[in-house]
């Protein structure tokens, strides 16, 4: 294992420290925790958005703290949910009195810790709503599993709900927008290589030189199936099919396409994969109205990518286009300006 780190057990703390310093204009630390908040929080009159989860998915979540998106992000250890304490501290530090929306990726650990945190925050007088994100179609439904995982679709929930909060929606309305996004977004991913958790020191799974892993999550866990390596066009088809089976977007309808890198894949390959996905959507007559390509919801240095489709409606499109100013996502105004 070679990484740009010092003590493998201190990676998250040192990385957050560097992040806070590099982005001191936008973000600040919550007390003496590892949680990060908008430098101008609490923003008066605005519902606050808080997300978090295990580290290793950067820029998610801390990279999305800022105007138009999150008010706070609470990182846990690598791939491990944070405990309730810093979540409560972060919620208190960003609540303006209009309440805090917790955006939680659907993993047992996150669900349990954010649940506990919500209870404790309520005891401290903070009104909390929670939204679970579970966009990963690689996982079978909760009859057989802990339920679908939250993966790259989380970014879209954070951006769009963030815009709703910024325009002044109340807590219930912001939560409702977030749930609408959750109901209309699906993702599926592929790994070309595993990743190595710093304190573990060995790759999370072994993949031969001619194998890829289809249906992976973002924690280095193995996926749905291991298959012989394929070219980008075939991989695109494999990722898209189960998404469109589940989402039912009709011909002529509009979608947002997110091609997300897992951390170790160069941007050029992500753009190439985006082209493959776009060609398949063209064939089906589905209109790509908005798009985003980059390493946004990652699994350390894993090579691979995920495809996310959000079935747009006019309100979601408008909220997507709203300005945002965070370390990892900045938009000046409507698409194309």
């Amino acid at each position, binding site marked *: 294992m070679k990484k740009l780190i010092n003590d493998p057990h201190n990676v998250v703390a040192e990385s957050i420290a560097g992040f806070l310093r590099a982005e001191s204009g936008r973000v600040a630390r919550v007390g003496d925790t590892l949680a990060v908040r908008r430098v101008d929080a609490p923003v008066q009159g605005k519902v606050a958005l808080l997300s978090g989860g*295990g580290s290793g998915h950067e820029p998610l979540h801390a990279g999305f703290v800022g105007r138009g998106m999150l008010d706070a992000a609470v990182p*846990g*250890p*690598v*791939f*491990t*949910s*944070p*405990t*309730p*304490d810093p979540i409560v501290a972060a919620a208190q530090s960003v609540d303006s009195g209009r309440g805090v929306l917790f955006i939680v990726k659907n*993993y*047992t*650990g996150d669900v*349990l*810790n954010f*649940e*506990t945190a919500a209870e404790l925050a309520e005891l401290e007088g903070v009104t909390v709503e929670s939204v679970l994100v579970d966009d990963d179609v*690689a*996982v*079978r439904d909760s009859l*057989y*599993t*802990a339920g679908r*995982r939250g993966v790259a679709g989380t970014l879209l929930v954070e951006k769009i709900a963030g815009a709703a909060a910024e325009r002044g929606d109340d807590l219930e309305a912001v939560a409702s927008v977030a749930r609408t996004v959750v109901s209309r977004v699906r993702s599926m991913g592929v790994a070309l290589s595993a990743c190595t*958790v710093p*304190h*573990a020191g*060995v790759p*999370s*799974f072994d993949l031969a030189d001619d194998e890829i892993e289809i249906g992976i*999550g973002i*924690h*280095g*866990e*193995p996926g*749905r199936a291991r298959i012989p390596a394929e070219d980008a066009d075939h991989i695109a088809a494999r990722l898209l099919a189960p998404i469109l089976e589940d989402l039912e977007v009709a011909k002529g309808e509009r979608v947002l396409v997110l091609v997300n890198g897992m951390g170790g894949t160069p941007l050029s390959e992500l753009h190439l994969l985006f082209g493959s996905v776009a060609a398949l959507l063209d064939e089906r007559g589905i209109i790509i109205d908005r798009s985003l390509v980059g390493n946004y919801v990652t699994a350390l240095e894993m090579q691979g990518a995920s495809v996310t489709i959000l079935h747009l409606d006019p309100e979601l499109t408008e909220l997507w286009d709203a300005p945002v100013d965070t370390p990892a996502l900045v938009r000046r105004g409507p698409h194309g300006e």
Partner: protein
Amino acid sequence: MTLDTAWARRWIAEAAATLVGERDRLNGLDRAIGDGDHGENLDRGFQAAADRVSGLADATTPAEVLKVVASALISTVGGAAGPLYGTAFARASRATAGEPEWSAETLATALTAAAEGVAERGKSTRGEKTMNDAWGPAADAASAASGAGESAEKALVAAADAARAGAEATEPLVATKGRASYLGDRSAGHRDPGAESTALLLAAAVTAVS
């Protein structure tokens, strides 16, 4: 030896010591069907728990020790195991409040409360390849030993043995809860890390008796 406050203190110290040595193996089990951090998480949590317990000057019951353990685990472990183990210790503490020395029956009450807490918190049940498959049999074994009039120590040994057997019996199962459930059929053939760590914890409780 009896299951008193000193035992509870030794238990947690022993658990912390066990986890240092077993950390990598638990990570390895978790790597196979989860995300490879279970040993790391528990090690961190039990070092913190042991620290707080050793700083706890005035405990007069095992329940008081276990309460401190519960809150240490909740605030340091994270992941799925943190809230689940936290709940287990909190429920065991609550169910035995005021008892300075545990009888076999108290032990059975404690383990049953812990097992029910985990199942409730995890919305899970036995046979789903989780730590329930160690807590459940352990509670049953303690109850049976208590019913048969065994000593507290014997009941504890029976519980630990049952937890160990339960952990081993998770190997053929297909997981339907926790991270391992994402793997579907591919989860079969591996031992559940949480069930294994539960067995280790109860074995540490046995060691702490002597």
